[in-house]
């Protein structure tokens, strides 16, 4: 629902990260890490990104999204496991005191920019 705003943030961050000597090059890919517990739907994000990125240096770039599973650690018995169902109690000792190690990510990891040195093909 708020994917449009998220897409805009991604474009802002990615655009600011293009090195000065590569300003005219095409951004081929934006690598993202999105946790299963984040309130973002990857397909909606791709759809919004396509629209919002028009007329920006990111136009046509692919959003490569790595979805990270929800991994918890029990603060009482130190057990670690992947949470697949919305049950947030320790599998081993039933404690409810958990630390979420991953699954809340909404990170932009890197961008991949077309290497201009590639003159031999007619592709852009």
């Amino acid at each position, binding site marked *: *629902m*708020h994917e*449009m*705003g*998220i897409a805009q*943030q*991604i474009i*802002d*961050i*990615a655009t600011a*990260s*293009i*090195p000065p000597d*590569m300003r005219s090059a095409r951004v*081929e*890919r934006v*690598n*993202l890490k999105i946790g299963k*517990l*984040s*309130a*973002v739907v990857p397909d909606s994000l791709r759809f919004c990104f396509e629209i919002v990125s028009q007329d920006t240096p990111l136009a046509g770039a692919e959003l490569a999204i790595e979805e990270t599973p929800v991994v918890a650690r029990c603060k009482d018995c130190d057990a670690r496991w992947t949470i697949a169902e*919305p*049950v*947030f*109690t320790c599998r081993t000792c039933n*404690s*409810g*005191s958990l630390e*979420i190690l991953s699954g809340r990510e*909404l*990170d*932009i*990891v*890197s*961008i*991949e*920019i*077309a*290497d201009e*040195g*590639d003159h*031999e093909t007619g*592709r852009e």
Partner: protein
Amino acid sequence: MKPVENKKPTREVKIVSRVLAVNERMAEQNRRRFGEKGVFVINVMSSPGSGKTTTLQKTLEAIMPEVKAAVIVGDVSTTHDADRLAVTGAPVVQVNTDAFGGDCHLAAHVIEKAAEDIDLDAIELLIVENVGNLVCPAEFDIGEDARVVVLSVTEGEDKPVKYPTMFRTCDAAILNKIDLLPYLDYDKQQAVAYIHQVNPGMPVFEVSARTGEGMQAWIGWLKEKMKDKKPNSKTKKKG
């Protein structure tokens, strides 16, 4: 030599940033500012129609004027909620998110702007009534001290497991409209069990904002939370 199958050669530029880094920085700024002013900020979230505005209206009526409070109300459009809350005498700032792109949540910069219209020196509690939505507001820190989610017995018992992120990021839940229980097939035990499945130990206040039943427990909790924050502000208390 040409590579046989080639993806276009690319140069990778590492970034490693939270996508919402700008919002998070702004939220921290808000938090510092509210902290300096000794204002406790509570972010109240819910699905539409859970009775959030009535709950807040009754809360304000119960705590004022002992507690000096102000409200920021977020809605996609209309000022209906602000009008209802203004009756309590608390200063109310309405934020219509359509001016900000029809957003489904309040972001930190919106709160910063709305807070400019509030005399922070004159209040100790700022209630933010977020846009009715159980998904997006969970993702946006606004600089609050506590988060509360309101749900009602006219909704499905399984709301907590359908929206685990919301229920995990909140500090307490208000289960509203319990005066309607005799007319419904709602399984209250199951609902509370689901809440605790997602967020073990979370306080759940069963209330009817309409009749006032159960409101004291919720208000007591809120006042305790406010006291806990006080050490940072003017009134010194041993932690």
